[in-house]
């Protein structure tokens, strides 16, 4: 009996070790991002030559990104603003679309329709990003050039539209879950008081699932800000704080993916600076996830009692 309980203990520890793999993985990712990004700020030695680092605030708030220049400049504000704008515009499209789809699925759709629409949303989610980027490049870009009197077909608007369709499924599935978990007695109460179905949805169900909806929105935005292939292929690549939705922009992931191939490994400022951008990107998505997690925990819906 003793050996049996010992065996159980060993197995339990084995599983615990496996479960810790995620912590280890995240830890390793952070370790490598930080160690490869630090020389950007601390300076480094390459082949006996001493390079001095740049200040963290100069890096974040510098408004010139000119890695290859007689006087290189390492300000990533244009890249951050590129990411922010692309994410915001795509959210303007994706949030209403995603939440309305979720409401339809959870509250209105007849069973038969839901059984078709739900898989459809999941399939939309599974489309590889490179295919969406390709579509934006060969179909949407010429179309935009045709429709508007603009100079660049691959631009912020194009990237935002493409990103929106990648964020919609994320928003829809989380939002639908949270709408679904609103207890039925709330709906029944509202309907019994004479409210229409829409009034019930608008004034009872949606407010009750607000925390889930915010989580959905945050995770959807987090997905947009980190998406790489789409912005690499259709955002246009100009490192510049945009002044119009038709300006080409260079969001952070695009800059990393486009430039990493041409830097010298661990030899030049450019290489380390790209890791520093990756670190900034990681921190942003990390904060988004923490926020989502916090909201989900703090305002956890536990039946009707919590409302």
């Amino acid at each position, binding site marked *: 009996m003793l050996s049996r309980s010992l065996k159980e203990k060993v197995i339990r520890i084995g599983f615990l070790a496996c479960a810790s793999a995620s*912590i280890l993985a995240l830890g390793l990712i952070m370790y490598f991002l930080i160690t490869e990004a630090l020389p950007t700020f601390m300076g480094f030695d390459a082949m006996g030559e001493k390079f001095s680092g740049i200040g963290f605030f100069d890096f974040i708030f510098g408004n010139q990104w000119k890695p290859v220049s007689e006087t290189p400049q390492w300000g990533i504000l244009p890249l951050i603003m590129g990411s922010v704008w692309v994410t915001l515009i795509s959210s303007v499209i994706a949030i209403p679309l995603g939440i309305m789809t979720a409401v339809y*699925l959870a509250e209105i759709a007849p069973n038969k329709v839901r059984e078709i629409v739900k898989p459809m949303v999941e399939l939309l989610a599974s489309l590889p990003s490179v295919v969406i980027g390709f579509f934006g490049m060969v179909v949407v870009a010429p179309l935009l050039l045709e429709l508007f009197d603009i100079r660049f077909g691959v631009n912020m608007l194009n990237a935002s539209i493409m990103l929106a369709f990648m964020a919609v499924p994320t928003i829809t599935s989380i939002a639908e879950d949270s709408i679904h978990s609103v207890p039925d007695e709330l709906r029944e109460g509202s309907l019994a008081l*004479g409210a229409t179905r829409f009034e019930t949805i608008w004034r009872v169900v949606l407010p009750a699932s607000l925390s889930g909806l915010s989580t959905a929105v945050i995770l959807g935005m987090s997905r947009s800000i980190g998406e790489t292939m789409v912005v690499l292929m259709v955002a246009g690549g100009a490192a510049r704080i945009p002044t119009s939705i038709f300006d080409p922009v260079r969001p952070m992931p695009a800059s990393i993916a486009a430039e990493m191939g041409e830097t010298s490994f661990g030899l030049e400022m450019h290489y380390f600076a790209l890791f520093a951008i990756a670190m900034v990107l990681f921190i942003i*998505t990390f904060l988004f996830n923490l926020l989502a997690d916090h909201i989900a925990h703090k305002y956890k819906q536990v039946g009707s009692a919590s409302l």
Partner: protein
Amino acid sequence: MSEMVSTEMTVNGSNIPGTGTSMLRRKITQESWFTLFRAAVAINGLALFIIVGYMVYYGLPAISWEFLTTQPTEGGLAGGIFPCIVGTFYLSLGSMALALPLGVASAIYLHEYATPGLFMRIIRLCINNLAGVPSVVFGLFGMAFFVAARDLGGLGMGVSVAAGCMTLAVLILPVIIGTSEEALRSVPDTYREASLGLGATKWQTIFKVVLPSALPGILTGSILSISRAAGETAAIMFTAAASYNPTLPGSIFDEVMALPYQIYSLSVSSTDPEATLPLQYGTSLVLVALVLGMNLIAILLRSRLRKKLS
């Protein structure tokens, strides 16, 4: 919040439901909003339909048996995509083989062993965050950790199948944990109680009772994660992919071609993006068919499962 909701309701309630023009107006409001909701769904459907439709319409003429089974020729300007299919096959299956045992074991710990507490909260937080890490960051991590050999502690595998599989494995780990946990959750507690009651140990219960009943759900999850790995581009850009390597990899330390990278490379950096447009559409169609097909299988599998349970 409950205060607010109830006062609102009284206001609405005092409107004397079911009579007169106000009810009509409210019905009209409802109908117009519902129409809007339906339109939102239609837009999503349309987007899927248009994207897939384009790939099918322009890609189908490019696809033939030769296209699928021969090597690219003329430096990738013509010929087939067999090495890309094989490369994607290796990368997705390899990463799954690495991540599945780890992911299922994690899920078992989280669902069967762990008690709610700080440690559990931390693990969950890590899994959620891992799921949210941008794929290009995974790519850089893979490059620094698996590919490079440096004083920082890189493993020095070079750009290779092995490095790509490991990077992708980390990327799909959260997907596998999530779906496996859901599968475990769907196993009724009565099964466990019965097994424990018969004198089985916890491990025996998990291995002989819980896992077999959760297996279809886990299978669904692994199909989903294969499709995720198959479509991933940014994570293999710096860790596994070559734009032209028509010979199949001889060992796991060779570079491979892969479908998603091939689309990117043909459309962006190949010699002649115009002339290879049919190839690009063809390759996209193959990738889309592969990924959507696997997802469809997973969806059908899951719906059958749910029906069986309920």
